[in-house]
């Protein structure tokens, strides 16, 4: 899965040492080898819902080339280079068959692989860190239930210096706040549920929030749009500002967007959001869709007009 350039081995050693010094006891591996016991059917079913809500398949299943489920290979172009979603089937060599539950939970929470190496934040651990233990465990149960595929993961195509995994440690110190989702006691259970789906599972902010030149999210502009989204496209402001966000959309408009991909002017979303609708939002329960709507409406409106750049 990791891309290791000329600096790879050095990076890896240095990262392990530095991580040990800086984070002391954090990241100790308590887990043994992968469990032999098959996951329970109800955990798999719940896990599939988490899997859909989190949109895992968009990056990990190469639908366009008829790739096997979760066998990886989907390119994601970013300002730092092109990343390829890795194989996360239970194949022991090419997938994550050798990972333990603790390894998967650590990847979600801390952005580290089974060797303790830093993952690139193109894998949105920055959002998944907020996932509850129960959801993370169910997700793992589902991942273990898919057929293993022996397709090697494609190496990322990213340039120096972004390919240095050690740099990821500094990136994390600057831009990553680990920790589970904390409900806001001042808000309703519905708004908190919506916040959890948007922030932790759906990782909506990863595309809908502007990033700085180092790829860190500008948290003051959370969900207020992004001029440099995936594949270089602009991503709209979804705060409830009436002119530049979704303030004028009715609940029904939002339901139709999430279920059908339709916008209030009769248009149908394209690109990455069409995938999000197909894989994720259309599979949410009605009550979760309404929770997401309640949460988005509870946000402070941010006036920030996002325009699609002239096509290159």
């Amino acid at each position: 899965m990791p891309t290791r350039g000329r600096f790879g081995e050095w990076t890896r050693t240095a990262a392990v040492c530095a991580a040990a010094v800086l984070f002391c006891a954090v990241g100790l591996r308590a887990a043994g080898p992968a469990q032999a016991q098959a996951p329970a059917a109800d955990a798999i079913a719940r896990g599939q819902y988490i899997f859909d809500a989190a949109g895992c398949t968009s990056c990990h299943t190469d639908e366009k080339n008829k790739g096997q489920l979760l066998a990886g290979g989907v390119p994601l172009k970013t300002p730092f280079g092109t990343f390829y979603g890795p194989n996360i089937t239970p194949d022991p060599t090419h997938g994550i068959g050798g990972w333990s539950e603790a390894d998967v939970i650590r990847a979600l929470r801390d952005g580290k692989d089974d060797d303790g190496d830093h993952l690139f934040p193109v894998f949105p651990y920055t959002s998944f860190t907020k996932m509850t233990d129960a959801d993370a465990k169910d997700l793992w149960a589902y991942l273990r239930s898919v057929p293993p595929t022996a397709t090697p993961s494609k190496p990322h195509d990213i340039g120096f210096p972004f390919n240095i995994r050690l740099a990821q440690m500094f990136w994390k110190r600057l831009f990553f706040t680990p920790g589970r989702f904390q409900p806001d006691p001042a808000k309703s259970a519905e708004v908190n549920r919506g916040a959890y789906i948007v922030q932790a599972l759906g990782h909506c902010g990863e595309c809908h929030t502007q990033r700085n030149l180092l790829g860190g999210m500008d948290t003051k502009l959370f969900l207020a749009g992004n001029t440099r989204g995936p594949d270089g496209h602009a991503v709209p402001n979804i705060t409830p500002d009436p002119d530049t966000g979704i303030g004028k959309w009715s609940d029904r408009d939002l339901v139709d967007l999430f279920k059908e991909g339709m916008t209030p002017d009769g248009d149908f979303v394209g690109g990455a959001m069409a995938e999000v609708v197909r894989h994720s939002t259309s599979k949410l329960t009605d009550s979760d869709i309404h929770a997401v709507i309640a949460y988005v409406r509870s946000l402070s409106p941010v006036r920030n007009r996002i325009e699609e750049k002239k096509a290159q």
Partner: protein
Amino acid sequence: MSKGLRLGAAAAGVAVLLGVAVIAEAQNAPAQINQRQEVMKANGAAAKTLTQLVRGEQPWNQQAAHQAATTINTNAKQIPSLFPQGSGPETGAKTAALPAIWQNKADFDAKAKALDEESAKLMAANDEAAVKAQFGNVGKTCGGCHESYRAKNP
């Protein structure tokens, strides 16, 4: 009509046809892009009408629903020819059409055909329940094509 007149009329006819051909040929890429954007806008407007009817935001009007479905169907049939080779972003004009259209033109045309077929079924839907049931299928073909072939965000 004398032979001369007939000849003259024929010549005029040919001239008109040639003129039309020349105009069509001279139609530059931005004009083509503009034309297909108008077609897509008309589809959006028709979808909006259908949405309002399906949601009950307007009183049910079978004729309006049928008309909107007809607009989409007529436009769907034009889509393959509205995207000729060389009318993509390489023209330098502002277009949301992705180069993938011309890399997979057969698939793109098949998706246009799907819209043609689904909108034909919508035209055939002769009451409120049938229109409601079919409208979602039309929408899926819109989104299914935009997902791979359109760059613009709403």
